[in-house]
Structures are given as C-alpha cells and as structure tokens.
C-alpha cells in the first residue's frame, strides 16, 4: 500500500451531498479483473456525454482544476455499493485526499486500504473552503497526517481527527494482512477451541 505523510495539492470542489459509488465509477467498468486503469472512468457519466465527449461545464473538466489532487465534497460521500473500484479510480485519476463532513463507512475503509486519506471536517469549514476553491485561482491545501493538521497559505488552519491505528498504518504504508498474520497462533487457537458444530459449513 502507498504510504501517506504529508500532501500539498490543488483543490477541486464537487460540492454535492450523497455522491454514491455508482457516480464515482459506473458499473459497466467493474468487469475488469485488473486493479489499475480505472481513473479514465472516474465520474464517467458526469464527465462525458452519451458520445464520450467531455462535458466542458463539469467541474473536473475545467482547465483550472486539471491536476487537482484534493477533492472537496458534500456529506455522505461514497454511499452505496462496496466497490473498491471507487477509490481505485480516484487514486488512479490523481486524487490523494478526499474531504467531506461525513463518509459512508465501507468507502472510508476502502480509501485507507488504497492509501487515499479521507478527511472529515465540519460542514461550515467545508463550505468556506469550497468558496475559496471557487474564487481563488490555484487554491491549494496542505494535509499533514503526522500532526493531523490541514492548512492553506491564506491563514486557514484546522485540526482533523483520525483513528490512531489507522493513522499509523497509513503513515507507514503497512500491509495489514502481514500485521494480522502475527496473530496466527491466536487465530488457530480460536478455531480449535470452538465447538464442532460452529465450524458449521458442512451440514452435519
């Protein structure tokens, strides 16, 4: 997994509530058995018209937001399907950070596995950042995961919180399968001390 320590980048506002994973990556692109190459399909139905032509009015297509790496969005981002293709496509497109006032649970976990940092901030703070990202040319934010701080060059700074253990894994880019396998004996003990019928899947 990618590690994440500190990131400074261009901010793009896509300020709508309840953006679901079907919007982030529509189902027709889930048939691939690879893990890469999903960036081209990110927000497909919003970025392209029926003929595959870029819609110029969609915010991600505007020249000033090309190369944005921080997505600023509305509450309950990532609701819907559990498809990890959603963070894969965000990451492949170039996003490292998503900021919202609330995330859907499975999506939040999936981001951390992919090495994207989901940052939760208050709705008012987000609304203000959206305003800046819309009005200030080349508006950038810096996210410092070591100190759990987010700031810009115009005097804005705030703290955010994230579970300590998740932060630790992200800072170090740890593969959590490896971490879990340290408890191999405990897993085996757990299995061996269960009553036989709980090892159920045999129908006997």
């Amino acid at each position, binding site marked *: 997994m990618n590690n994440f320590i500190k990131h400074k980048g261009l901010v793009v506002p896509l300020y*709508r*509530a*309840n953006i*679901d994973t*079907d*919007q982030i990556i*529509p*189902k*027709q692109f*889930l*048939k*691939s*058995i*690879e*893990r890469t190459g999903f960036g081209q399909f990110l927000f497909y*139905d919003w970025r392209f018209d*029926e003929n595959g032509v870029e819609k110029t009015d969609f915010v991600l297509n505007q020249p000033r937001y090309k190369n944005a790496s921080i997505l600023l969005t*509305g*509450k*309950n981002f990532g*609701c*819907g*399907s*559990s*498809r*990890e293709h959603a*963070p894969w496509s965000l990451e492949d497109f170039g996003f490292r950070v998503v900021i919202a006032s*609330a995330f*859907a*649970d*499975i999506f939040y*976990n*999936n981001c951390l*596995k*992919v090495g994207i940092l989901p940052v939760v901030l208050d709705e008012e703070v987000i609304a203000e950042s959206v305003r800046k990202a819309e009005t200030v040319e080349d508006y950038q934010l810096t996210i410092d995961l070591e100190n759990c701080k987010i700031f810009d060059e115009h005097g804005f700074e705030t703290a955010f919180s994230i*579970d*300590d*253990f998740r932060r630790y894994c992200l800072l170090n880019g740890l593969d*959590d*399968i490896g*971490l*879990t*396998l340290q*408890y191999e004996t*405990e*897993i085996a003990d*757990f*299995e061996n001390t269960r*009553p*036989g*019928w*709980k*090892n*159920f*899947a*045999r*129908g*006997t």
Partner: protein
Amino acid sequence: MKTLYDKIWDAHIVHEETGKPALLYVDLHLIHEVTTPQAFAGLRLANRKVRRPDLTFATLDHAIPTIDRNLPFNDKIAEKQVEALRKNCEEFGIKLFDLDRIEQGIIHVFGPEQGLVQPGQTIVCGDSHTSTHGAFGALAFGIGTSEVEHVFATQTLPQSRSKNMLIKVEGELPFGVTAKDVILAIINEIGTDGATGYVIEYAGAVFENLSMEGRMTVCNMSIEAGARAGLIAPDEKTFEYLKDKPFVPKGKNWEKAVEYWQTLKTDDDAKFDKVVEIEAETLAPFVTWGTSPGMSVKVSENVPDLTDAKNETERKSFERAFEYMALNPAQKVEEIEIDRAFIGSCTNSRIEDLREAAKVIKGYKINEKVSAMIVPGSMQIKKQAEEEGLAQIFVDAGFEWRDAGCSMCLAMNEDILQSGERCASTSNRNFEGRQGRGGRTHLVSPSMAAAAAIAGHFVDVRNWKFND
C-alpha cells in the same frame, strides 16, 4: 447487560488490545465474480492461500445474462470475469455454485436458502447488501476487495466496534403495506446517513410478525440508511426456516445449535446509543421520487415542493433530482407514468415477493406501453414459482420470466434502462444511472411494481381490485 450486537461481537474476538481495532473471526465468507478477482490476484502475488476454503462459498450473479446464459455470453468482458471466478475457485479449493446448478442465485438469496447463514455468525461479502443476513440474527456486513483478500488470507478482519441503534416498530401493518414500505419509511425518517457508525437492531411486533423473507428485505436496505449492519433477533420462525436446509447442523448438533441461538437476544436492560420509534399504523405504500433512497413519499401523496426542503443544500439536491427524474415539484405520485417495471434483486426476489406480485397480477395484462420483467433471486425460487403456478400468471400477463441474477438492479448485464425510461423497480437503489445511464428509477414493493405495470402509472395498491 449486552445488546445482540455486543454478544455476537464479543463471541468473535480473536485478539484485542487498546488503541487498535479488534481482530474478529469470520464464520462465513460469501463471494461473487465482481469484487474478488483483484483479491485473488493479491493472494497469488504474496504467495498466500485461502485459509478456510471450507467457510468460503461462491456463486455467480452480478454480470451474468438472465436469458440463454448457458450459451457463450454476448458480453465477452463479463464472460472473462466469470471464467476468472471459476478458475480462482478451482485453484483455491472454493465451492462454486455455477450457472448450471439449481442453487445458483443472487449471493444474498443463495446464502440463506442453503442454510449457510445462521444466527450468531459473523458474515462478510464484497457487497454492501450483505446486511441482508442480519435477518437471521447474524452480524453481516459488506467489505471492499482489500478486505476480501484479508479474509481469504486470515479468516479474520480488524474492526472497530459500532454504536447500537434500536429501531422499534410496534403495532400492525395496515393492509397493502409490506416489509419494503417499512424500510423505505425508516430511511425516509432517519436519512441515508442516519445510521452511519451504527449497527441497527430492528425490534417490535412488526418485525416479529414478518416472515423471514420480509425480515431479509428490511435488513437488506439497512445499508441505505448508512448502517454497518442490521439485525433481528432469531426466534422460532428463524429456526423453522433453517431446519433441514443443506448446510445447517443436523441431529444432536441441531439441538445444540438451537440452544445457543435461543440466547441470542438483547438483554432487557441493555442500553442503545440511539432509539427510533415508529407506529405501524402510520405507514402506507411508499414510492421514491428522487435519486436517493431517502427521497420517498406515500403513494397517496404528492412529491415534495421545493419549499419543503429543510435547507439550501437540500433544496439544491431536490432541484437536481427533479431535473434528473423529469418530475415537477408537488406533482401527484399516482400521475407518474412508467415505461418499465422490474421485479427482482436481493431486496425483493424471493418466493413471497413473487406470490405478492402474482396476487396483484392475476387476471390482468400489463399496460401496452409498459415492458416488464420478473427475475427470481435463485434458480430454486424459479422452479418453485413455476410449480406454484405463479410463473404462468406472470407470462399470461405479458411479463418476461427470466433466470436468476442481479439483472436490472444494477444493469451490469444486458438488462438495462434506456436513457429517459422510467421504471417501477423493487430493487434498493435509485441513484442516477443505476439501472442504465439516464434511466429513472422509482423504488417500490413488489405489489406496487406489479400494479404500476398493469395500470401504466403508480397506483395505490390498497385500492386494487384483486381477481382471486
């Protein structure tokens, strides 16, 4: 004093230390073709095995055609994904219920039907509607592909404990109001992120009186309220449903199992972090009008007006939804005309759903402007519906009668809405483009979808003239 959720949680802790998520044991891992190929690839890369292939079960559902599916697929990319699952299951020793098997079906219909899902278990699947299995008093939730790989390799998952929410619906459901309407009403009430961070326990007379099928419909859509999982305490009905299913313990082990399952209920004085109470008598058949499952109204009402929005953000999302759905603010629901009807999905494709639809359809023909299909949740249900004579009722009325699969619930195969088409659907998501780019989805119960297919527009099934 513990809730049902706490009891299941505590019984599955393999390792716990402060400051870290607990390591939970996974009793059952269900898998399908779409969210697993990259997890298998990860295993191969790291030279790892599936730790418990005997606790892992696969079927095919999402990308498969629902007609002529034993022929080569028209969609070669989907076929490749299906082939990949077959190969992976063989290589890693996992049991696959393939397209030629009577057990094949939507993963969340298949699991309970085979008795794989049992009270008190922890169950995961790379699919958000894994919450369905909470109907049996199992802790069941959806996971991403990296987590699928983690479960493959370790049969455990690091998890943080959720908060407890109690949703109580007391009283008796009025005529024409189904499990689907109950859950749509709940989501309407608490919002699509109302249960984020919580596991919901559903309790009260309404859930006690629901069949197992109805309970599955309710738990299925817990995720649409943002919940980690939904739970209903197991009871005699649960045991009755499970008895003699293929993968359920037998003989002495059955008795031991039931004895344990009977302990799986929330203690009388256990505390919930949040409690929501709803009166059954206030409920009615619901129809979603917008592009999020929380945007719903009673069929007898009008869609909201812009002035009903609670704030600026909500007003904006109303406007956007009206535009996408091609509806006017304050429009009467019964005047909304449909082009398509879809009865199926892991929410509403079980035998009871089909019986409910058949009651409405019997003796009628579908409206000439409407095309409609019924997609059973499993091949076993298909067979049963044919034996009970339901299939004949559907076909006589002009419905297409398909093979089991997810079909137009997510439209990954050829079952898809054309841009601008409007559909009465028994599925669980009305997101933009969910059933096809530009398609307009209204979520309803099976009887409401059936009635709309016949009338050509939404109608209040409470006033339906049944031919029985």
